[in-house]
Structure formats: C-alpha cells, structure tokens
C-alpha cells in the first residue's frame, strides 16, 4: 500500500539579483514522481544541491510545491488548510541533519519532547512527564536527561532527542534528512541501528535522505537517485547495486566502492564539474557515454524491468 505519493512535483525558488536585477529561477525539483510504500525505507541519494532535501520538505508540505500533487494515504493533501495539516502532522514527521541547530538551546529535554503533547493533545504536566520518560527509554537515553539542556549532550545524543521528538506522536511516516552527516563515524552506526530498531517496533516508513550510498544501501529496501532536480534512477536496492543503469548511478557506486576500499580512484578521469544549463539530459556535461540525442532532450523516467526505472537514452 502506498503511504505517500508525489506526482510530477516541481519546486522553483526565485533569487533576485539586486534592486532592478533579473530574477533568477532555480529548479530545485523538476518534475519528480515517486511513491513510498507502507513499512519500507526509501533511500534518496544524490550530491549536494540535487534537490533531495527539497523533495523531503515538499512531501511533508513544509514547503509548498510550485506544481504537482502530493497524496498521503491516497488523500490529496496538496491544498489542505494549515488547520487540517496540523492534524496530519501527527502522522508525518522529520529528523533534520544537524542536531546542533534543530533543538532549541533554551528549552530542556522535557520541554522539547513534551511540546508535541501540549500542541496536539493538551496533556497535563504529569502525563507529559510519563510520555517523555517513555520516549527517552525508546531512543536509549538515560532517564535523568529529562531536565537537561541540549548543550549538555553530545551530537549523537542530540540526534537521539531529535528522533524521540519525531516519534512522539506515533507517526507512520518519517523523513530523515541526512540524519548522520553531522555525526562521527562510530556514532553514525549507533544511530543507524536506532532507526532500524524503531522501524521494527513501531512499523515506521522512512524516506531516508543521504549523500552516502553505502549507508543507504545498508538501510533502504528501495533507492532513488537524484541529479539536478530530477529522479534519474529508481529501484530495489539490490538491483541498483548489482546492475546500475544510469551513468550517474554508476559513478556514485564507483565512488562508494572507492570510499569503502580506498582503492581504484585513479579511474576517475577529470570530467567537467560544471553543470550545463541548456536543454538536454541533466547529466550530459559529465557523462562519458553521452550521445548526440542526450544534448537535445531529457530522457523520461521509464520502467526497464519490474520496479527498476531509469531516465537515460542508453
């Protein structure tokens, strides 16, 4: 069953240059469609600026799409009023990248984790304390953390607090937006384990956004690869790892092997890092296998075999 679906989502940001300057448009999302099924982890990879965070925010309607539709549990939520959205927020939550900026430094853990219960259920203090203690136990923090403040915790512990806040109202869908990249290697592994354990206990569905394909391969059942605002490949994790079809996915995987094994980086020939703006495939300026047609139009995302989609003319 689909839990959330985005149909042809577009998000354009406008940058103004000076007082009379031209407006510059940036297409953070350029017609992305995807569905996430109940209980799965969908991993989204791509490099910085490719639009993966924008996609996460648009799906939760933390930002409104310029075009396109969002369905949550088969209900169109694209134009819901903020009152209706508030009810829905119980079911969809987000964990941000940097636990140093996502927690209010002037609030104690009790305030941070108790707030959702005030906003949504107006629970009295005593019951809130029960709830907060329960949450702390779920994410593996000591119970004496209740009246501490964020600065008294390490990065990994802060991320645990942020995760506790996200699961407070028992949501069904969580967007995890690069939740590991601000953490040290040994702590990253702890947080991955926590995500997996919570998913098993609470039946959560994740959209797991990361630039690290190694991590995504470990945690996700299905993977989407984004490049410059477009989804260029999508499929089962095993399939994509074994038989990547898009040249960009291949490049990412090579880089991942290289990171894992520390070998073979000489095979990376200097291709242009600049991104072409003119028509054609988004990846054409960096693609080794580009053909003339790639410069003229962007290939559609097509299903090559069951569940494996790719946007490439090859």
């Amino acid at each position: 069953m689909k839990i959330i679906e985005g149909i042809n989502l577009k998000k354009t940001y406008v940058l103004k240059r000076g007082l009379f300057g031209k407006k510059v448009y940036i297409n953070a999302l350029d017609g992305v469609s995807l569905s996430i099924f109940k209980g799965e982890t969908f991993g989204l990879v791509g490099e910085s600026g490719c639009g993966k965070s924008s996609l996460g925010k648009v799906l939760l309607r933390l930002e409104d799409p310029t075009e396109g539709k969002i369905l949550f549990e088969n209900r169109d939520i694209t134009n819901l009023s903020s009152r209706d959205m508030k009810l829905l927020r119980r079911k969809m939550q987000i964990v941000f990248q940097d636990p140093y900026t996502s927690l209010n430094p002037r609030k104690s853990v009790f305030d941070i984790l108790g707030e959702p219960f005030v906003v949504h259920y107006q629970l009295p203090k005593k019951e809130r304390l029960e709830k907060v203690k329960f949450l702390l136990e779920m994410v593996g923090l000591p119970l004496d953390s209740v009246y501490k403040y964020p600065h008294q915790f390490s990065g990994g512990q802060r991320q645990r607090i942020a995760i506790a806040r996200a699961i407070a109202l028992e949501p069904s869908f969580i967007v995890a937006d690069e939740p590991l990249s601000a953490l040290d290697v040994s702590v990253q592994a702890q947080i991955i384990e926590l995500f997996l354990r919570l998913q098993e206990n609470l039946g959560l569905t994740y959209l797991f956004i990361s630039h690290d394909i190694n991590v995504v391969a470990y945690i996700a059942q299905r993977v989407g690869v984004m490049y410059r605002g477009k989804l260029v490949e999508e499929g089962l994790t095993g399939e994509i790892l074994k038989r990547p079809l898009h040249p960009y996915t291949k490049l990412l995987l090579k880089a991942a092997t290289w990171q894992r094994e520390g070998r073979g980086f000489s095979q990376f020939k200097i291709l242009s890092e600049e991104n072409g703006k003119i028509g054609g495939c988004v990846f054409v300026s960096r693609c080794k296998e580009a053909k003339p047609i790639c410069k003229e139009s962007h290939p559609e995302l097509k299903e090559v075999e069951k569940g494996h989609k790719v946007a490439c003319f090859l």
Partner: protein
Amino acid sequence: MLLEVKDLMINLNTKKGKFAILRGIDMVLKQGETLALVGESGCGKTLTALSILRLLPPNLKIEKGEIIYKDINLLNLKEEEMRKIRGREIAMIFQEPSVALNPVFTIGEQVAEVLRVHQGLKKKEAKERAIDLLKQVKIPDPHLRYKSYPHQLSGGMKQRVVIAMALAAEPEVLIADEPTTALDVTIQAQILDLLFQLKEERGLSLIFITHNLTLTKSFADTVAVMYFGQIVEYGKSDFLLKNPYHPYTKGLISSLPQDPFSPLRPIPGTVPDITSEIKGCPFYNRCSYKLPKCSFLLPPFFEIEDRKVRCWLYEDN
C-alpha cells in the same frame, strides 16, 4: 627524518582551569612519506597540525614537547623565523575551500600573491607562474579562470585553487586537513587523485588528516589513529587496516557499512568530556575487551613488530 613531533602536550586554559587537549603525541614524518592522522572530531588531529605550524589559537598553550623540522626545534623559533617556514617549507590545505579563499580577489591574484611574497617575483612573472600552477592543478582554461572570483567556482574547483596556492611556494611538507570532507563523493576522488599525483611529481612529504580510516588504505604509508588527544595505534597502513590491534581501531572499521548483508557493529557510548579527569585508558568505558587495570592505569605504547599500540591487551607480546 624530516619532521618529528616529540611528546607534544597542549592545554586549554579556561577560567575553570587547565584541561589537557593533546596528551603526548609522538610521530615521525620521513622524506617522501605520507602519514595519515585518523580520528573523530575533537581527538586533536587538527590541533597537532596547527601546532606544527605554530598557528594555535591563543587559549591553547603548548605545555611540553618538541617539533623538530630538519634538526631545528620549531617551538624555539622567533615569529619572523617561523614566517619563513610557513608556506615555504611547510604548507597547509584546509577543509573548507570557500573559507580559505578571499572572496574579493580573483583566484589568480590570490595564487600570484603567494608567489610575490614567497618567491619575490615581479607582477608579470607571478601572473605567468600562477596560470601555470592553475594548469598543473587541472583547472580548465586557466587564462580565463585567472580572472574568476571564488564564488564563480564549484567546491572542487576551489579546492584545486587552494592546492595551487599551497604548492606555489614549493614547500617540502604539505599538511592536508580533511581536504575533501566538504566535497561530494564523486569530486572527492578527483581531488585526492590530483593531490597524490602532485605529491609524487614533486616529491612532497604529506601529512593527511582524515576521519575516514578507509581513505588511507591505498595511499598512506603510515597511519596514526588518534583518540582523546593521544595516538592509540601507529603503524604501516596496509597491515594496520587489515589487522587492527587497538579496540578503537577495530570499532572504527566495523562501524562502517561495508556491505548491506553484514550487520554493523557500532562502538557503544561516546568520547569522554575533555573536562573530565581520566586516570586509566580513555577508551575504557567504550571498550568491549577491557581488563580491570584499564580503569586506573594508562597504557603505554607496546611494540609488536613495527606496530605501536596503546593497549594493555598487548602487554605480553
């Protein structure tokens, strides 16, 4: 022996008192060698590098130790003498290229400035040499790019410019502090490739600082794993990665997702707070191999063949 750090200790001075940040670092960089310093944030790897160049912030004080470069103790030099070492003898590349470059000068001017200051070149010569350097770091169209400002370049291109600046004064030792951490994976590979190619061509000696142990596998000769202001394991890189001895090194390797089918084995717990007083091994509370004496006795280095490990488990070897 080109550069040797002996028993380096650094304290942080605050109103609350002194806290040890580096607790006795010993390491050796040989001519033409690549030495990798590996560890998590806060373990002191960057501070070790900064103290070699004597660029520590004022609240950090070197308590003890020597830094010997070509038979001179850098810690005894006067500031003007030190200025001749920085850049010309030992240069450094920082993590974040957008911070390392001045946004109001073109990249060409910034490279040329190094040449004018250190090599005493005239303006025109400096420009020619700068363009040549931009070419060596494989920036396409160096003549045109000379006039670009940092914001017009991508992160990878900016890091290439920073490398060109570091090489401009023809140093013997290059310290690269997480030079690829701010870049995307596909670009990381290209930059490292470039860095090691230049290192070979110019016969540089390199200190490479990273938090990613596996990055050291193919190109570092020696690896020093740091934890809580100390080196805990030190040895030849290929052997150390294949067969780590220290429980922390083992933990670092098993925390990385290697393949989707073998489970992760994270290191439990967190690094102790620097303000806490620690008598025994600082890794004690996270270690799954601990012995009773680890809690109150700091292990010295034990040598096993050409490896050094700071762990009581290897006392009898």
